[in-house]
């Protein structure tokens, strides 16, 4: 059983929302992963669409590099509208 690959499961709760990570499971192939995902993560109609992705295929950023990796955005407060002074009385800006 340990040989069965791991799959990450993403569920779209309803139309108009994006798929969100729900959890993971083991399955021998994609089709079984999809069926198992339905039985495991949507027993109460939690979803209208399910994705399964082989966990080994996901490339993730490393928490050790978190600071360095996300650093470039840290000193760019001017990307937020709250950075700017708006004169008194100016509306719809």
């Amino acid at each position, binding site marked *: 059983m340990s040989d069965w690959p791991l799959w990450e499961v993403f569920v779209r709760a309803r139309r108009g929302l994006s798929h969100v990570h729900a959890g*993971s499971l*083991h399955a021998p192939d994609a089709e079984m992963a999809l069926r198992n995902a339905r039985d495991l993560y949507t027993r109460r109609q939690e979803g209208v669409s399910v994705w399964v992705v082989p966990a080994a295929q996901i*490339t993730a950023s490393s928490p*050790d590099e978190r600071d360095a990796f996300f650093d470039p955005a840290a000193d760019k407060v001017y990307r937020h509208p709250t950075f700017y002074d708006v004169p008194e009385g100016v509306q719809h800006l």
Partner: protein
Amino acid sequence: MYGNDFGAPSDDPGREATTQVLDVFDELLAGDGRVEPRDAMPEAYRKTLIRQIAQHAHSEIIGMQPEGNWISRAPSLRRKAILMAKVQDEAGHGLYLYAAAETLGVDRADLLDQLHSGRQKYSSIFNYPTLSWADVGAIGWLVDGAAIVNQVPLCRCSYGPYARAMVRVCKEESFHQRQGFEILHTLSHGTPAQRAMAQDAVDRYWLPSLMMFGPPDDDSPNSAQSMAWGIKRFSNDDLRQRFVDMTVPQAEALGLTLPDDGIAWSEQRGHYDYSPIDFTELFEVIKGNGPCNEQRMAHRTGAHSDGAWVREAATAYAAKAAARVSAA
């Protein structure tokens, strides 16, 4: 598990927490932050979580047995459908939890091996038999009720994947508790024989349910560390008291009594008093001397080996289908 977002095995030098790394971990906990799979963490924290989550997962799947015992004899189609859904939920809870444990760098197959060989435990409550239909009600009301009190604080556990699994589990458990309460309510308002059956079930399950919260605080060696790590949020005795306070009025609504003459409202404490518990039984059951320990384990290992051909067939089918695709 979360993609490749988990640590390498424990020989990974990165996991050997350096002082600097521990500072980050302590800071995270101090700010009530969440620890996520690939974060550096003290090895003892990781081991404690693996032990606790695995034991929790094992409890969920062993817990399918006492109730599964009554599926074929449920008194109506409605009750049967409900009970099947509930037992199916327990399997699901086990799977959520095994997946959470795997984010800590262990394999589900290894955890199952450890359960089967007796190296890891499951909750002692499942070593009691379900002698009557009313026991299914008592398990839902009392055992799942106690589980909810234990588990709600775990939704805020410091380890993210465990906390998220518990959010799902807790949502589903409230149906379990209500269906149990409804079974007992129906029986307690039925014939005298049905009423007696309900009372007998409550009499037998009350004390084992109280013991589910574990030994008293002054005899619970790991509690302090688990609380410091944000794995545990309230002490065993505090949770037990919360359960008693919640359950006494519900018993009154059922028209059933709890088998303890010492239960009385304490104006002074603002809680219900209850008699001191003799924990000898709990420790005996944990040691393996409960009424159903052997039966539960025999059934579990039997189900695992009986299912081997299904796993093999699925693996063979997947290999054949993959070969067909690569040949095309």
